[in-house]
C-alpha cells in the first residue's frame, strides 16, 4: 500500500473519531453550563452569531490592530480549513477546487499562526502562559500539515512525494493539530473559547449590547417572588449563576485586556478580572487554580484554592477582598473581546455576602444602616438635605410648585461642602439660561447606587420605589443631575420598578443650552486643562462628547490623557470601593492623578461628585480639580437682557440675597462685571422706590 492511499483512509478514521470525541466533549461541557440557574434562552441570538462575531466582537478586538488582523487570518483560515478537511476527508467530497481552496485556507491560517507565534515569543504579562504558549505551535502544525497534505492533491507536487516518511510526519502533525483544535475545543483546551465563545455570543444575557446598543443597568432580583425557604439571594456557589453566565466564563480567551484595564489590579488590590473569570471556570468544572498560568490576584498566592459547582466561592475559591476590590468601573467589560460581564458576576457574589451573610466589609454595614434609617449614606438628618441651598431660594416640588420643565436631582452632594460648590454653580447656570426648574427638597432620597453596588438589593429597591413614588406626584419633562451615579440609576435601573424618565447629566443638558445659545460662554481664557471621564457617564452611558463640547465652547483645547474616553481609568470612587476600602500597594486616585500630571495640565475637569472627592483627596502639588459646571460659571457671559430678565424674575426673592447670590456665585469677566454693577445699583434704587 502506498502512502497516498494509506493517508486518506487513516485520516478518515482519525477525523471520525475526533469529531465523535469532540461531540461527546461538547455534550459534557453543555452539561457543566446547565448546572446554572434558568435564564431566558435567546434562540434567535444563535442566528446572529456570525454577525455578532464579525461586527460587535471585532469592533472590540480592533482596538489592537495587530491581534485583530492576526485573528482574522488564523480563525478565518481555521474555519475554512476545517470545513474543507471534513468535506474532503470525512465526507469524501473531492475535486480540484476544494483542494486548491484547502491549500489557500491553510496557507492563510499558517500566516496568521506565524503572527500569533511572533506575539508569543516575548508575551506581555497580561497574556496567560501554560497551554496558551503551546497554542501557536499547534496552530502552525495544523495549518502546515494540511497545507503539505494538499500539495500532492492539487498536483503541485507529484503524488507520493516524501514517501512513508512524510506520511508518518504528516500523520503525527495532523493528530496533534486535530487533537488541539477539535478535542481541545470541547475538552477544555485553549480552543474552548471558539466553541463556548460562539454560543456565548448567541445566548448572551444582555442581547441589547449587540448592534451598537448598550445595556449597563444591573439585573434586579425579584424580592417578592423569591422563595426564601428554598431559594437564595445572590450567588454563593458556581451553580447559583445563570446558565448563560457559566457559559460566558468558558468563553474567556485569557487575553488579559481586562487585567491591563483594571484599576484595582494596577493599585495592587487583590483583584485580577481575568483570574476571577478563570476561577469561575474552575468552580464550574471543579478542580483548583493551580492550572492558571496568568498573573495572580496581587498579594494572593495562587494554586491552593479549590472549587466546585456546589462549593461556596467566596473565601474558598476566591478571597472576599477580591470581590470587594472592584470599583464597578466596567473597564474590564468594555475591554473584553468576548463581551463577558465581570461586573455582573462580582455584584451577584456581593449580593450573597450582603443579603445572606451580612458581611459587607469596611464601613459597608454602617453605610447600609444609614441608608435604612436616614436615606443618605452618611447618616445626616433627612431634614437637613436642603441646608446647602438655604440662600438659594430654590423652588421645591410640593411646596412652591407642582410642575416644572426640569427636575434638578441634587443627590448626596447636598451633604458635602466641596460638591455644594458644583451644585451652586449649576443653579446659577440654570438661572442664567432661564430654565424652569425645581427640586424635590427633603423628600429626595439617595438614588440607591451605593447600596446596589454593595449588593444590598433590598435597600436599593426600597430607595428606588420611594423616589419613584415621590416623583410620580409632580409633573416635569426632564431630570438633570450632576451625579453620573444617580444619572445611571434613574436612567437605566429605575425602569424595572416603573420609573421611566428623560434623564440628562448636567453636561449633556448644558451642552444643549449652549448649542441653542441660551447660555453663552466666553472663549478668552486659555486654560491648560485635561478632562477625566467618569465611568458612570462614559462607559455606562456613552457620554463622551457633551463635556468635551462644553470645554471646547470655552475655547479650551483639552490635553487628553492617554487613558481617556472608553479607556479612562476610574478615580477609585465607584462601586462602594471607598467604603469597603480594600488595601492595595497604592491608591487608585493617585494613579489617576499621575495620568493627569503627565499631560502637564493645570486643571483636571470632572463631571462627577465622586471623582471630585477622590481626586481632590490626592496630596498637592497636583492639578486643580474643577467640575465642568464650575468652569462654565467662570466663563459665563451675561448680556444685559438676561440680567434684566433675571432681576425682574427675582423680585419675589429677598433683595439682599439676590444681590449676594449674583455677586458671589457669578464670577464675571471684567467687562461683564461693570454691567452687573450698573444693574445692581439700578436694582437697589428701584427697591428703594418700592
Amino acid at each position: 500500500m502506498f502512502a497516498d492511499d494509506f493517508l486518506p483512509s487513516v485520516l478518515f478514521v482519525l477525523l471520525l473519531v475526533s469529531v465523535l470525541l469532540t461531540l461527546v466533549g461538547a455534550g459534557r461541557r453543555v452539561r457543566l453550563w446547565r448546572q446554572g440557574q434558568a435564564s431566558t434562552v435567546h434562540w434567535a441570538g444563535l442566528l446572529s452569531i456570525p454577525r455578532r462575531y464579525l461586527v460587535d466582537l471585532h469592533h472590540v478586538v480592533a482596538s489592537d490592530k495587530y491581534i485583530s488582523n492576526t485573528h482574522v487570518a488564523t480563525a478565518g483560515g481555521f474555519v475554512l480549513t476545517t470545513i474543507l478537511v471534513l468535506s474532503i476527508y470525512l465526507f469524501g467530497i473531492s475535486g480540484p477546487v476544494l483542494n486548491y481552496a484547502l491549500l489557500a485556507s491553510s496557507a492563510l491560517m499558517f500566516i496568521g499562526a506565524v503572527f500569533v507565534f511572533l506575539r508569543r515569543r516575548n508575551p506581555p504579562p497580561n497574556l496567560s502562559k501554560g497551554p496558551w504558549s503551546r497554542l501557536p505551535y499547534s496552530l502552525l502544525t495544523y495549518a502546515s500539515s494540511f497545507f503539505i497534505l494538499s500539495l500532492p492533491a492539487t498536483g503541485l507536487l507529484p503524488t507520493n512525494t516524501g514517501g512513508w516518511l512524510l506520511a508518518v510526519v504528516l500523520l503525527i502533525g495532523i493528530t496533534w493539530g486535530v487533537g488541539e483544535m477539535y478535542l481541545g475545543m470541547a475538552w477544555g483546551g485553549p480552543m474552548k473559547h471558539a466553541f463556548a465563545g460562539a454560543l456565548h455570543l448567541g445566548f448572551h444575557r444582555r442581547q441589547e449590547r449587540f448592534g451598537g446598543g448598550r445595556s449597563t443597568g444591573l439585573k434586579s432580583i425579584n424580592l417578592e417572588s423569591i422563595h426564601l425557604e428554598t431559594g437564595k439571594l445572590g450567588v454563593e456557589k458556581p451553580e447559583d449563576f445563570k446558565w448563560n453566565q457559566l457559559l460566558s466564563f468558558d468563553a474567556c480567551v485569557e487575553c488579559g485586556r481586562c487585567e491591563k484595564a483594571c484599576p484595582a489590579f494596577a493599585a495592587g488590590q487583590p483583584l485580577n478580572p481575568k483570574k476571577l473569570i478563570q476561577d469561575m471556570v474552575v468552580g464550574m468544572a471543579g478542580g483548583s487554580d493551580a492550572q492558571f498560568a496568568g498573573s495572580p490576584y496581587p498579594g494572593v498566592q495562587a494554586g491552593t484554592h479549590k472549587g466546585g459547582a456546589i462549593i461556596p466561592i467566596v473565601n474558598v475559591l476566591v478571597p472576599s477582598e477580591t470581590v470587594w476590590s472592584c470599583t464597578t468601573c466596567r473597564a474590564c467589560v468594555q475591554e473584553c473581546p468576548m463581551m463577558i460581564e465581570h461586573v455582573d458576576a462580582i455584584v451577584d457574589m456581593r449580593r450573597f455576602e450582603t443579603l445572606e451573610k451580612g458581611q459587607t466589609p469596611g464601613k459597608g454595614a454602617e453605610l447600609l444602616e444609614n441608608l435604612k434609617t436616614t436615606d443618605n449614606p452618611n447618616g445626616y438628618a433627612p431634614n437637613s438635605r436642603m441646608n446647602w441651598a438655604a440662600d438659594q431660594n430654590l423652588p421645591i416640588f410640593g411646596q412652591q410648585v407642582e410642575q416644572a420643565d426640569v427636575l434638578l436631582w441634587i443627590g448626596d452632594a447636598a451633604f458635602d461642602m466641596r460638591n455644594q460648590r458644583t451644585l451652586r454653580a449649576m443653579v446659577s447656570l440654570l438661572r442664567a439660561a432661564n430654565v424652569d426648574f425645581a427640586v424635590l427638597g427633603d423628600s429626595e432620597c439617595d438614588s440607591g447606587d451605593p447600596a446596589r453596588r454593595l449588593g444590598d438589593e433590598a435597600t436599593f429597591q426600597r430607595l428606588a420605589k420611594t423616589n419613584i413614588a415621590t416623583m410620580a406626584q409632580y409633573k416635569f419633562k426632564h431630570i438633570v443631575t450632576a451625579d453620573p451615579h444617580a444619572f445611571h440609576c434613574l436612567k437605566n435601573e429605575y425602569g424595572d420598578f416603573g420609573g421611566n424618565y428623560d434623564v440628562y447629566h448636567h453636561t449633556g443638558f448644558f451642552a444643549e443650552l449652549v448649542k441653542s445659545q441660551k447660555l453663552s460662554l466666553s472663549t478668552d481664557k486659555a486654560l491648560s486643562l485635561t478632562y477625566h471621564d467618569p465611568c458612570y457617564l462614559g462607559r455606562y452611558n456613552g457620554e463622551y462628547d457633551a463635556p468635551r463640547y462644553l470645554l471646547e465652547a470655552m475655547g479650551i483645547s483639552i490635553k487628553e490623557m492617554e487613558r481617556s474616553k472608553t479607556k479612562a481609568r476610574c478615580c477609585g470612587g465607584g462601586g462602594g470601593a471607598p467604603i469597603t476600602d480594600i488595601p492595595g500597594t497604592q491608591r487608585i486616585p493617585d494613579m489617576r492623578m499621575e495620568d493627569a500630571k503627565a499631560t502637564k495640565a493645570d486643571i483636571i475637569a470632572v463631571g462627577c461628585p465622586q471623582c471630585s472627592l477622590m481626586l481632590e483627596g490626592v496630596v498637592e502639588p497636583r492639578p486643580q480639580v474643577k467640575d465642568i459646571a464650575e468652569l462654565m460659571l467662570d466663563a459665563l457671559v451675561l448680556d444685559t437682557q438676561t440680567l434684566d430678565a433675571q432681576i425682574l424674575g427675582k423680585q419675589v426673592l429677598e433683595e439682599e440675597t439676590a444681590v449676594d447670590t449674583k455677586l458671589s456665585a457669578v464670577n464675571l469677566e471684567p467687562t461683564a462685571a461693570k454691567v452687573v454693577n450698573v444693574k445692581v445699583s439700578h436694582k437697589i434704587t428701584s427697591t428703594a422706590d418700592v
Partner: protein
Amino acid sequence: MRKQTHSASTEINKNTEGLHNNVVKMVNTASKESVNVTVLVSVGEHPLSKRPRRAEQDARAIEIGLNLPGTQLHVMHAGAADNVQTNTVLKDYLGMGLPEIQVLNIPQEADNLTALTSNFTDSNPDIILTGIRAENGESSGMLPYVLSEQLGMALVPSITEILSVDKKAGFAELLQALPRGQRRKVRVKLPFVATVDMAAKAPRQSAFGAAMRGKITVVDAIATATTNNANTEWKITPAQPRPKRLKVVKAKTAADRFKAATAKAQGGAGKVIYNNQEAADAILKMLTDEKVL
C-alpha cells in the same frame, strides 16, 4: 434595689486588652442543661430621623448572646404584636442570624413588667440581658432594675462582655464598663440581669435574607393595666440639651492636661450617710447646689 449587685470580688483592670483575649470558657458538662440566655429587645429610634431601628444597646446584647458558645439564646420583645413598624425592626434583629423572636403580646397601654415577670418565672432564664435604657418613650432605664427586684436576681449595669459562665458552680464572670475606657471584672451569681453598655462589641450587620427567614412568634401574655395612668396625660417635648458647665483649665503643662484627660474622676467629696433624714437633706442640698431644683 441594687442590693444584690456585684456580689463577689471586683477588680479594676486598666489593661483591658488582656481581658478581651480571654477565651470564653463555658463549663456546662456536669448539668446537661445549657445556659439559658434571654435578651430583651425594644424598638429603637434614630436620633436624627426619628425612624424606628434596632436599638443600639439591645443589638449589642444580642451580639453578646450570639458570641456565647453552648448557650440557648432566646430573644424576646414585649409589646403590641402585629404592628408593622415593630415587625420591621424585629426583622432587623432577626437579620443578625436569629431563628426566632418571641413577642409577648401586650397592648400599648398595659404594663409589660407583670407579663415579663410571669414569663420569666416560668422559663427560668440564667441570664437576662437588656439595654440600659430605651431610645424613645419614657426611657427611664428602670425596667432592668424593677425586673431584677421582682425576680430576685442580681443586676449588673453596663456590661461589655460575658467572660465565662459556669452553670455548675452557678457563677458568671462579666466585664463591666467604667468611665474613660476602664473595665472591671465582676463575678456574679446565676441567675442575673445585666444591662449592656455602648462600649460592648458593635452588633453584626443585619442580613436581609436571614431577616426574612426568621420567625416572629407571638406569645399571649397576661396584660394588666398600667398602674401609672398619669402618662396618658403627659405632654412629650424634645429634650433640651443640658448646658455645658464652663471648664476652668487649671493645667499649665501638657502633662497636667494629659492627666486631667485620662485620670479617673476622683470623688473625694462623697460621704456615707446612714440616717434617712440626713441622706434626704444631702440629696436636696446637692440638687439645689446644681440648680436642678
